[in-house]
């Protein structure tokens, strides 16, 4: 299988690779071959949750040795050819253009400001020596998507990162909602986060976008359990019931596709932030992918055409940065569901491939310390330093 389409030039600052082997050894061997670069400085990968993780870790340790390697499990991958499933995609950072440092947050519950400051200081320290002249930094965070700790961890990390722009995604598990993992220090971890600091002199832009527009309907959360991210009542009625009425289907028909096509959002100032429904619980409550609380007001949203919007965003990035070497994309899996239900997946794949996007489908995205849902968030990296 070809590692890349088209193959990157020999001295490309960023190599992209994909393997569709189900066998972890064979898959990682293929990645290793495609990323084989004398100055490889770090590897970022996204893998299907179908892989036997123990075997995959072993193969990664064996192939990449001491190099910093981080990644996470997904709800779908974005390869050089677009949306895929059941594969592993990877990005190799060349040392000439990138200094990469990684850190694991193994205990999300005890990640306080002091710990965050230490972590960021340590990352900056380790990222500095190899950094190219005139380098700017960004931080990428991969989080366990079922940890329910994203908001606090991100707010804390953002305070420590200061002016360094941050983005990232929550790991997925192909909509099984049982276990999601991040990979660092040679192992897969649950209830953990990985922070990657990248310094480069190439131009880059951290971005986020969504295609959802507000409707008039408002739903007030009249009862919620914030610890478990469950909404028990909307407008003083059982939550699932009221939401089903909004969608116009029986409660039993509520599924991920319905959640994707009938999103809810909170409005803060003039902006709407989508709060995605994860599932309907047997007690008639709704679980969310993000923090909820009694008294918040949800606005019903409807999707605008996604393809046009995606095309415009990618064109805008290319316009500002020149043709990107790469876009690392964190794409909410609900967007993918929407594309699938509309039969637009192939068209979207073409756009992503043309835009040189590598990434994965998430259970949540992050942008400047904000935990978001149903967005396309990432970093676009230009291929040449600004003139």
């Amino acid at each position, binding site marked *: 299988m070809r590692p890349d389409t088209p193959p990157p030039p020999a001295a490309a600052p960023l190599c992209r690779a994909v393997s569709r082997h189900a066998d972890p050894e064979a898959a990682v061997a293929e990645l290793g071959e495609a990323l084989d670069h004398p100055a490889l400085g770090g590897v970022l990968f996204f893998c299907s949750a179908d892989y036997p993780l123990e075997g995959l870790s072993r193969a990664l340790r064996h192939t990449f040795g001491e190099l910093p390697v981080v990644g996470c499990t997904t709800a779908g991958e974005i390869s050089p050819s677009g949306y895929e499933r059941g594969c592993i995609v990877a990005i190799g950072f060349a040392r000439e253009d990138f200094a990469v440092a990684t850190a694991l947050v193994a205990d999300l519950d005890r990640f306080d400001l002091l710990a965050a400051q230490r972590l960021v200081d340590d990352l900056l320290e380790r990222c500095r020596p190899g950094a190219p002249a005139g380098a700017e930094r960004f931080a990428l965070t991969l989080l366990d998507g079922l940890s*329910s*700790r*994203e*908001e*606090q961890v*991100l*707010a804390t990390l*953002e305070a420590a990162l200061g002016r360094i722009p941050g983005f990232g995604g929550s790991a997925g598990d192909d909509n099984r909602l049982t276990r999601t993992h991040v990979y660092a220090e040679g192992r897969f971890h649950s209830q953990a986060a990985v922070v990657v600091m990248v310094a480069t002199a190439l131009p880059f832009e951290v971005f986020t976008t969504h295609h959802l527009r507000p409707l*008039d*309907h*408002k739903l*007030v*959360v*009249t*009862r919620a359990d*914030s610890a478990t*991210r469950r909404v028990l*009542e909307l*407008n*003083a*009625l*059982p939550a*699932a*019931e*009221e939401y089903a*009425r909004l969608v116009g289907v*029986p*409660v*039993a028909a509520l599924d991920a596709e319905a959640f994707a096509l009938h999103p809810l959002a909170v409005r*803060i*100032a003039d*902006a709407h*932030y989508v709060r995605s429904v994860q599932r*309907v619980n*047997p*007690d*008639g409550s709704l679980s969310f992918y*993000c*923090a*909820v*609380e*009694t*008294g*918040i*007001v949800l606005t019903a949203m409807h999707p605008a055409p996604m393809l046009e919007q995606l095309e415009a965003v990618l064109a805008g990035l290319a316009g500002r940065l020149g043709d990107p070497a790469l876009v690392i994309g964190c794409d909410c899996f609900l967007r993918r569901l929407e594309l699938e239900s509309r039969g637009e997946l192939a068209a979207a794949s073409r756009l992503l491939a043309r835009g040189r996007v590598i990434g994965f489908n998430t259970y949540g995205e992050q*942008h*400047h*310390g*904000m*935990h978001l849902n149903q967005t396309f968030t990432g970093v676009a990296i230009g291929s040449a330093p600004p003139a």
Partner: protein
Amino acid sequence: MACTSTRLSPEWPLDPRRPPEPGASPEALAAENDRLRRICAALIERVEAGGVPHGGPYGAFEHSVLLAEQVRERTETLQRTLAALERSRAEAEAANLSKTKFLAAVSHDLLQPLNAARLFASALEGQALPASSRRLVGSIGRSLKDVESLIGSLVDISRLDAGVLRPDVASFPAEELLGVLAEEYRQLAASRGLELRYVPTRAVIASDLALLARVVRNFLSNAIRYTQSGRVLLGCRRRSEGLEILVGDTGPGIAPAQQRLIFEEFRRLGTAEEGDNRGLGLGLAIVERIGGMLGHPLGLVSRPGHGALFSVTVPYGERAAPGAAVRDEAPEPLAGARVWVIDNDADIRDGMAALLGGWGCRVACAASPEALSGPAPAALLVDYHLGERRPDGLAVARGLRERHPGLPVVVITANHDAALKAHIREAGFECLLKPLKPLRLRLLLGALLEAQRPRRSAR
């Protein structure tokens, strides 16, 4: 799970456009009332909990959103402010440039006809005129001179403000500057019945010689101008941060309230004698700009009725290695050369002193050869016409040439008669015609001094 809610209104209770239901049963209305009450309670709970920072996971999210929004807003404001600043900076720069260009054009286009007018006025003065007319002609000449010096000062100020003048800092013995100035201003002071006391120094300082000379000259002229009787002092104080050059006088002094104002443009104190060289008070404004540009702090201590003490503090320079004269290192032959100027016109003497001083020459000016003494100068500039019933420049030059054999001499004359010119040349002197072209003088002096160089360095 409960899925029987059809007994309640299928409408959205929060839709403000919802039409009233005329046939609603009391039970349905009571149920809806209950829902609205609970919605209200939830909202109240949320609003009242809202102020708590980091109040749980949703609070953390909200905090991040507000923070990101603030950062975005501030970044936008900052960018707008920076853009506005950049615009106004560019505008100011353009305005300043056009001002400088305008003044440069003014200096050129105005000074030329002014120069001619002054020449005509002095030519008129040379003719037999009734006494009343002679006074008027004299007034015209002085007025023209005032205008000329005012324009010159304005151009200087604009050049300083526009950063066109760039200081050329080098180390030199302070005595090299102050000794010459003392010599020059002693005569001026004497003509006003004042005594100029000078205390020499051996300190070496680092500054721009020509610019520093303007500062000290300004202090000295002010001191002489405003002091009716008594003394003017030129001296130095060694301070840790540098050599403080002081000019003190026994004049009327300056009231504390005015001590700051006199450094502003167009400020004059009303004690100068009538008929004196009338500037527009730009001198100290220029001094202040030069001080700022060179980084030399200025000082003023004064008490009304007890004189004034102006000072400028100059950093110490590096003493040249023994045996190597500091000024001889300069490639320019004029730098450090002692030049005597004999002219009976005080204005011309001032002009020559400034011109030659600006080229780095050590200038001594006098109205007659008797006032000049000391070792042989490197060159002599002498005006042909030195006043009625006095020996002419040619005779003076011959006398000095006898005292200092081989002395290079330039005779300057407004008389364009070819016979006179030939006469001067035959005597072995150079001749330059008025109006004097500075560039021509500089080239001639340079050539004369270059020819003398072996002799000078043996000095």
